[in-house]
């Protein structure tokens, strides 16, 4: 059933870029978490989540993304988001995710900002 979120990951040096496609709910969030931890274990320092092809992230999905963010911060890594719809951006701000993670309009801007922290 294709409501579930597809995830593609690409590693560029110590940065891992995640492209999501579809609804991020509990399952989608957990899949992102699983792959994020695998990237951290494999030495990635920064994670960029490009949500261009996601139109809905529910509050359970966001709560899992917050767990991922906490793990990344524990390990002194960086987590950045880009290409959010206005509604996802708004929800990230309501729940405070925007206070702890960086949000960029485009992937290029996220990549530049993340490189500057390296």
């Amino acid at each position, binding site marked *: 059933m294709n*409501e579930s979120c597809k995830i593609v990951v690409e590693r560029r040096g110590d940065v891992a870029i995640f492209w999501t496609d579809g609804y991020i709910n509990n399952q989608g969030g957990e899949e992102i978490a699983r792959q994020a931890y695998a990237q951290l274990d494999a030495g990635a320092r920064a994670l960029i989540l490009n949500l261009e092809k996601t*139109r809905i992230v*529910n509050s359970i999905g966001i*709560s899992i993304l917050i767990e991922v963010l906490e793990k990344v911060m524990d390990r002194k890594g960086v987590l950045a988001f880009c290409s959010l719809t206005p*509604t996802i951006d708004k*929800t990230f701000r309501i729940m*405070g995710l925007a206070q*702890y993670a960086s949000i960029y309009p485009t992937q290029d801007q996220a990549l530049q900002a993340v490189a500057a922290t390296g």
Partner: protein
Amino acid sequence: MSRHEIVRSGPDGAGPREVSLTIPVASDMEIVATAQVAALGEYIDMPHDKIDEVKLALVEACINAFEHAHTRDDRVHLTFRVGRDEDGPDFLEVEVFDQGKGFDHSGVEVPTPEKTFTGGKKRGWGLQIMRSLMDTVVITSGEWGTKILMRKYK
């Protein structure tokens, strides 16, 4: 009346429109339900970003009913209305009704980003998101179940 006019009865062109949808308690059915928000939102020419906000509020209300209500009929009953206040803009109204165990919403702790991050309690944002994204949210709940009535103006 035009020669090919086909609607013989029912509310007139400018009248209220009400559509009801019943979905099973099952994963992803909340997304199937959002299709109705898109269709009725487009019907009143609501901007797409606002349609997205109504969709997320609906998703949150549905997953609450799926997760917390323990419905007697394994279903969630949705009603969608488009209408207009006198001289006001068009609105889209969504009612989410479950025949579940009900809850006391005044007793629900209000979440904050601080508690979410330092306190370890990540969940508890559904009602808050509905209130933030919709123009009005009215919750009624009892032994008969729970009804969430939400409205957004276009």
